[in-house]
């Protein structure tokens, strides 16, 4: 039975644009398209977040990172999560499902891809070039910086010029120690661009250093799209339906997307017709949905004539290295990331690999995280000596991660698991992934340089996690853009080569990964694609 909602007609009347996913890219594209005054609907499998329940409001704030605020959907296992079979991967997928998506649970590190990242084949003879370049995205990076609210410092020689709208986070004790170490080595460092507000900004309160930023910010200082793009998009008339999980995209006799079948908040199967469908489900969710939308006309999955849907999965393997200094660090008492270094970002063949990595420097961790990690590393004994050891370790950690460029390899892929299903009985994704040789050499290089930095900071008890097991934050490449329909899934403005009213705006688009956190670039791409759609409304399907 159809019902009336807010005077917009029956609930399942056709809409002009249907966006699937209310995370980083879905929110940006919804906001951008809202000015067209089309009927825009977003379906999101999760719900609105309630900051009063975020971990940093309670004494169990650290423990919840191992439970209902774990970054792993398999551990977190909330009703809105879907399971992922990542047994055949040394890196486990982490994500968040809800309004805001992954931006609810990220570190807010906000670098952009570099110009060279769009030209890896031309410059270094590996992978493929993107069909667009850095300059094309610059206006959208800037618009996104304003909408998300970026804090940072202009003048960094390591990246192209940009002007963050807010001042950078303080260096703090940890940043100062790391900066001194980098200066001793003569290596580049700079305060990181971050979406943590350092001053009151567009209705968001400034950061008060809760320190537990990753699993959602109770202060609202960290930008997540539920508090940035979505309020503006909803005011502009976009409709957002929560707790609605899409099972498949259907097509009509012309091979155009007709709509989606989804389960509503009551678990009732619904059909939603749409003239345009935009996928914003991340680099695992998007190929999962396309593969689950196989039909007689599209037997290998929707938009998959290239066979590349789900292939070329890239993660950004992290090589984490840390040690302990005599001086007290900031530990958990500030946003976790403070600096970046671009010293090893651009290709230098003398290093034994192509492409490169960013160092992102951390301030430290809280006592529970320290105890659990140190016990696992054998630094924290049981019994006699426990208390002495803990007091030497806790509040003294200094460390960094090399976030390494992952090159696309077709055997790294997302498929549908033949057995595993989500709570609605929809086939779950399966991940098959191995570290590439170039990546492995890059990680070894990063570990060796990180040890030099820690030595310069006079740190001891060096620990390495490489790759970080639960480090699959960045889900990229599984429906990439390109000019050639045989070598890509969507064109240079995000439209499926096969289905001309189907668009993709999330990290699946990435042709190569770069060596930086991708959220800024994902959102700039979403805004760019929305802009392209607006410019082509009269002939969008030609």
């Amino acid at each position: 039975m159809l019902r009336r909602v807010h005077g917009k007609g029956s609930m399942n009347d056709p809409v002009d644009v249907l966006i699937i996913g209310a995370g980083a890219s879905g929110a940006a594209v919804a906001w951008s398209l809202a000015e067209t005054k089309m009927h825009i609907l977003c379906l999101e499998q999760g719900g609105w977040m309630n900051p009063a329940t975020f971990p940093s409001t309670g004494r169990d704030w650290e423990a919840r990172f191992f439970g209902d605020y774990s970054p792993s959907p398999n551990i977190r296992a909330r009703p809105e999560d879907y399971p992922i079979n990542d047994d055949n991967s040394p890196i486990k997928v982490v994500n968040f499902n809800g309004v805001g998506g992954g931006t609810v649970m990220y570190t807010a590190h906000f670098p952009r891809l570099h110009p060279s990242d769009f030209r890896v084949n031309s410059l270094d003879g590996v992978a493929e070039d993107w069909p667009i370049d850095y300059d094309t995205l610059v206006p959208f990076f800037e618009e996104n910086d304003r909408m998300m609210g970026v804090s940072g410092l202009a003048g960094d020689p390591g990246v192209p010029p940009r002007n963050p709208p807010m001042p950078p986070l303080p260096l703090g004790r940890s940043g100062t120690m790391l900066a001194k170490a980098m200066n001793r080595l003569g290596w580049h460092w700079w305060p990181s661009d971050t979406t943590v507000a350092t001053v009151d900004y567009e209705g968001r309160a400034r950061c008060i250093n809760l320190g537990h930023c990753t699993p959602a910010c109770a202060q609202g200082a960290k930008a997540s799209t539920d508090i940035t793009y979505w309020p503006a998009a909803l005011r502009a008339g976009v409709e957002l339906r929560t707790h609605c999980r899409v099972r498949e995209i259907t097509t009509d006799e012309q091979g155009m997307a007709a709509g989606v079948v989804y389960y509503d908040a009551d678990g009732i199967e619904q059909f939603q017709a749409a003239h345009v469908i935009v996928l914003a489900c991340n680099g695992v969710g998007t190929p999962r949905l396309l593969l689950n939308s196989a039909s007689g006309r599209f037997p290998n999955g929707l938009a998959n004539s290239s066979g590349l849907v789900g292939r070329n999965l890239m993660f950004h393997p992290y090589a984490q290295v840390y040690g302990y200094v005599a001086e007290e660090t900031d530990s958990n008492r500030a946003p976790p990331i403070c600096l970046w270094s671009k010293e090893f970002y651009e290709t230098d063949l003398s290093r034994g690999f192509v492409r490169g990595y960013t160092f992102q420097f951390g301030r430290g961790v809280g006592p529970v995280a320290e105890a659990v990690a140190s016990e696992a590393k054998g630094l924290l004994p049981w019994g006699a000596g426990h208390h002495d050891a803990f007091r030497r370790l806790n509040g003294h950690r200094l460390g960094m991660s090399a976030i390494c460029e992952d090159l696309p390899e077709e055997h790294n892929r997302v498929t549908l698991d033949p057995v595993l299903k989500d709570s609605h009985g929809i086939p779950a994704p399966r991940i098959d992934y191995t570290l590439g040789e170039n990546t492995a050499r890059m990680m070894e290089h990063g570990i060796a340089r990180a040890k030099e930095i820690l030595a310069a900071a006079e740190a001891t008890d060096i620990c390495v996690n490489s790759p970080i097991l639960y480090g699959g934050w960045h889900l990229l490449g599984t429906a990439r853009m390109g000019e050639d329909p045989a070598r890509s899934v969507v064109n240079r403005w995000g439209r499926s080569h096969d289905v001309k009213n189907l668009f993709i705006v999330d990290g699946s688009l990435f042709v190569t990964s770069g060596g930086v956190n991708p959220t800024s670039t994902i959102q700039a791409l979403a805004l760019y694609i929305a802009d392209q759609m607006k410019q082509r409304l009269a002939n969008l399907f030609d």
Partner: protein
Amino acid sequence: MSTDGPLTPTQSDDLRAIAAVMIPASTEFDVPGADDPVIQADIVTTLGRDACLVREALDELACLASAPLAALDPARREAVAMELRAKGGAAVETLTRVVLQCYYRDDRVVRSLGLEPRPPYPRGHVLEDGDWSLLDPVRARPPMWRRA
């Protein structure tokens, strides 16, 4: 004794015994051991989704000890506990974590570390600005990014 909780009385006793081996009380730092009743109550009442793996670890412990751990002499108790630790695995890691996460949020323990026993929100923390002149040598560098 009630068996309505997540652990049987024997498992509760073994949990208390192994927690004492892991983190003994310290007069030097004026902190309780992890077998402290308040900490034990916190562990048991917040086991939640970890209960299954914790029970599994305690069952492994019982197998290794062939008797209630608390009934063993201190040397044997420690030897069995260390054997379990060396064995490792998801269950043992979970048992260890739940003890650590409750111990290091106990008010007495947190205060002994020089920290305030409170959640981060709403008071937050103060972060010193640092010395921005450290950036001077970096500012002086020419652009490093590759033009494409």
